[in-house]
């Protein structure tokens, strides 16, 4: 007797047909639907922008074409790629640092009462320390170095990661931990197979809003003590009220982030969430 053999009348159908149909209220589930909606959404953005140009005039709201021309010119001159590259490196370094330390601290605080008691006042302090102060102190105490800059950014971000991961650690299902204990899972497997998957949504939240926060702080860091980077450029152009350049640099960065989001993060996330029967 083998009641559950996977065979049966498999309908001949391509990849699309094999996926369960989208729920009825999500009318646009297909690949082409996805593309259509995304395009419409992006088109809407540009339409709004153009309306802004008409309403506010090209000085306060330069048209997309002007900004594009600026981006092309700055790219050709090598300025934009240089500053963008520098900023991205800083963002990446600070991100890795903050996520690693923040996750470890958050796990410790979520799982041990003692760790939580000891670290909590510090957490609240760091969480609420103004970015400006942290940055200035880092520069003064460490020097105007790349290390200071990256550390300052990471310190600004770590408490946010910690707070999020701590919630995740607290919300973990004890049943799985118990199972792992009975079967004496090795430490590595405990983290990889039991803890990490449960933290995944929290890591995703911390990561996404973290990348954004880091980039916001990198701007301040670059403003206060670096001689290159997007933040440096944006502030310079702000002094001259060159909205075109500000938008150009901002959009260049946002585009990179959009690419990372759609080409790297989302495929990874889809993989990690395959097991959910109803992936959103």
């Amino acid at each position: 007797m083998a009641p559950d053999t996977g065979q049966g009348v498999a309908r001949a159908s391509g990849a699309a047909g094999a996926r369960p149909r989208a729920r009825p209220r999500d009318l646009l589930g297909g690949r082409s639907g996805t593309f259509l909606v995304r395009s419409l959404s992006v088109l809407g953005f540009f339409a709004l922008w153009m309306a802004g140009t008409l309403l506010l005039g090209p000085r306060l709201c330069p048209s997309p074409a002007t900004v594009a021309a600026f981006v092309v010119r700055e790219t050709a001159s090598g300025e934009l790629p240089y500053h963008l590259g520098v900023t991205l490196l800083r963002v990446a370094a600070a991100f890795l640092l903050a996520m690693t330390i923040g996750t470890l601290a958050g796990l410790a605080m979520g799982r041990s009462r003692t760790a939580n008691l000891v670290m909590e006042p510090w957490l609240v302090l760091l969480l609420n320390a103004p970015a400006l102060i942290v940055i200035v102190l880092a520069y003064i105490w460490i020097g105007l170095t790349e290390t200071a800059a990256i550390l300052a950014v990471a310190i600004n971000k770590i408490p946010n990661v910690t707070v999020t991961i701590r919630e995740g650690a607290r919300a973990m299902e004890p049943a799985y931990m118990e199972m792992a204990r009975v079967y004496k899972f090795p430490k590595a497997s405990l983290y990889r197979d039991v803890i990490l998957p449960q933290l995944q949504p929290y890591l995703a939240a911390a990561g996404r809003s973290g990348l954004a926060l880091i980039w916001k702080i990198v701007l301040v860091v670059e403003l206060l003590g670096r001689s290159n980077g997007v933040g440096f450029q944006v502030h310079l152009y702000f002094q001259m009220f060159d909205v075109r350049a500000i938008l150009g640099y901002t959009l260049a960065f946002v585009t990179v982030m959009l690419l990372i989001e759609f080409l790297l993060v989302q495929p990874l996330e889809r993989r990690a969430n395959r097991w959910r029967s109803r992936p959103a």
Partner: protein
Amino acid sequence: QDRPTLRLGLLKFGTVNWEAQTIIDEGLDERHGFELRIVSFAGGDATKVAMQAGDIDVTTGDWLFVSRQRAEGAPLTFVPYSSSIGAVMAPCESDIASIEDLRSKRLGVAGGPLDKSWLMLLALAERRHGIDLARETSPVYGAPPLLAEKLRQGELGAGLNYWHYNARLETEGFCEIVSAQEAARELGARGDISAVGYIFDEGWAQENRDLALGFVAASREAKAVLAGSDAAWQRIRPIMGAENDAVFEALVRRYREGIPDRPVEEEEADTRAVYRHLAEIGGEKLVGVAQEMTPGTFWQALKDGS
């Protein structure tokens, strides 16, 4: 070929760049036996941080800052650079023609409530017109570029802003109502006093006396070049960010007007007098513990008759 390097921390695209670039373009640093390296920053605060961190030798600032730091034990010192200073601007065809017309207007104030131009203006209004500007207008503090923009948009009736913003506004139909130099005169200055200068650590200057003096000399020579030569201006035009000829000309004119032309001793005496008034108005918040301008605020070596 092993000339000592002098690291000068500046706001990129700031007005001091023009002179620094001229020093390099004209080879003035080489002539005085040093190599000038410009370290660019995006904000005025950044240069102060860099100075504290010891990453640059010289930067720019004003005597209020230097005096206060000296009083607190940081031996900074000051060399006058320019007397171009802020002024109140309003649309030429508006009903604002004098300080008295500022009553009940929204007045943008760059640099915040402790900005020295603003404090001097307060004193002027009080003495000459019996107006308490801080109460009888609604001052709006904010970032200088934002305030300039708000003045253009008409959200502000008038604005006290830095000179290079004002030079642009001049070409767009805005007129000067009153300048901070005028206020300084009211407070006892006999001529223009400097608005900004180079600041550096006195100890450093002691150890690198030749370098520091060489730099001051190169700066003076660069000013002479810029005062006389239009070609020199054309050379630095790309870094000035002037969007049209009118702005360019206004910037050149205003810059030339701001070149200090008085002996340092005279200027220091005037500044000291003004300082006393400012200390009264601004209080401890502004000047810290020093009620008088701290001795040595103006670099001693300038007066030693070199």
